């Protein structure tokens, strides 16, 4: 990987398109927690025949869209403390039961932004040393959800890869990420092994390779992992 390659424009998905790509992988009946940033764009792209129960850390199961202007209720917010609504059939629980849902494996997917993801599935997303530390529910979510989908730009603002051999930022959890959705590609992680399963439209495997700093298997034959794949080093 060279800096020239990493910073050159290679096309790829917009933030909305990343959210849309991820939304296509949600299945009917999933219970899903969405972090801030790109994850919050996901709901608008969930197919109409797919019903997903959105979980908010502060105890909402069945979160609806943000509250309309003038319709705010101070007793109903999302986990980002923004005025929220609930869907028909929603339930409210206290914070202990909310995290019992999370840790107990009753959450199918948590979708989180990331600073870095390692090739083994380590996630760093809660703290940039020198800045203000705050963790919220991130460590519970990655420890408890059945699947952890990291969503992020493939490289940082300086053009440095965010998929790395070893995270340099403090970890949120070890061996927790199961998928990575970026503007350039989709990766799966299983048994500590990263696999590139899809390149964004117009993005070449070589462009992904140049911007990825962790070893991975190229497994583009099918998202099911049916392709044989060859080990590549980033």
């Amino acid at each position, binding site marked *: 990987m060279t800096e020239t390659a990493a910073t050159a424009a290679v096309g790829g998905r917009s933030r909305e398109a990343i959210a849309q790509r991820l939304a296509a992988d949600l299945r009917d009946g999933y219970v899903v927690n969405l972090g801030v940033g790109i994850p919050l764009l996901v709901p608008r792209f969930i197919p109409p025949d797919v019903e997903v129960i959105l979980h908010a850390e502060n105890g909402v199961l*069945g979160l609806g869209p943000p509250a309309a202007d003038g319709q705010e209720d101070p007793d109903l917010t999302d986990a980002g403390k923004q005025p929220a609504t609930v869907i028909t059939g929603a339930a*409210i629980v206290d914070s202990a039961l909310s995290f019992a849902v999370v*840790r107990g494996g009753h959450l199918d997917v948590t979708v989180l932004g990331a600073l870095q993801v390692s090739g083994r599935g380590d996630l760093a997303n809660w703290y940039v040393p020198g800045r203000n530390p705050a963790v919220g529910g991130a460590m519970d979510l990655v420890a408890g959800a059945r699947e952890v989908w990291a969503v992020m730009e493939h490289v940082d603002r300086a053009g440095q890869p965010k998929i790395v051999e070893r995270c340099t930022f403090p970890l949120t959890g070890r061996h927790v990420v199961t998928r990575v959705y970026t503007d350039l590609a989709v990766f799966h992680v299983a048994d500590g092994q990263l696999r590139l399963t899809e390149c964004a439209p117009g993005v070449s495997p070589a462009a992904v390779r140049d911007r990825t700093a962790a070893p991975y298997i190229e497994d583009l034959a099918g998202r099911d992992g049916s392709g044989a794949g060859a080990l590549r080093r980033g």
Partner: protein
Amino acid sequence: MIDKFRADPMSALAPIPSGACVAVGGFGSSGRPDTLLDALCDLDRRGLHVIVNNVGSDFTGIGRLLAEGRIRRLTASFPVLPDFYDEYFAGRVELELIPQGTLAERLRAGGAGIPAFYTPSGAGTMLTDGTFPLGYDPDGQVAERMQAREHRSFSGREHVLEYGIVADFALVKAHKGDRKGNLRFRLSARNFNPLAAMSGRYTFAEVEHLVAAGDLAPDDIHLPGVFVDEVLLRSELSPRQPAIPRSGS
């Protein structure tokens, strides 16, 4: 769309195999999922590990499972039914006897992703020191004893380490439920039901009333639907079904 309602208990419960570990709600006959328990009997499942606070005092519900020789191990705080003890001392059923509060907390912990916790209940007694007989030989000798608990002192007081219980399946009973699996219980029939439901890898809820989604307001739901996989209607006939005579086993 999410619709967890199933009309037929027999086909719904068919995936529960013989030998499964099943957590069951209820306190005696109060809040006990009789329709589901009858289906389990009618499906002829055997060798079950049943986790329930007590057996009850007759041959309905858990009592029917027992009378038909379907229980391999009972995890409970208060078996009650004399016939249960006949089976226990004869070496046909194992008994894991657990203090009631520990049992409730272990079911909750299992459902909450807490693998283990410390409690003062039972510390220094034969229910935690490895001496209580889990099961007997056919000749009446102790075949196996309950596992000793790790003891540890906190603030100068002895506590024991207890493990969360994750059951293969859970059978619970609620007063009202909707198609999203949200449940509301009534009075003391709530008891172990929310906890058994949490503990189950796959949870069936028997409800007296199936209501439309939204009929239960978010603040009136005692257990959110994420803990429930299938919802069935209680049959009014259940409590009156006679027990089939005890089989050989």
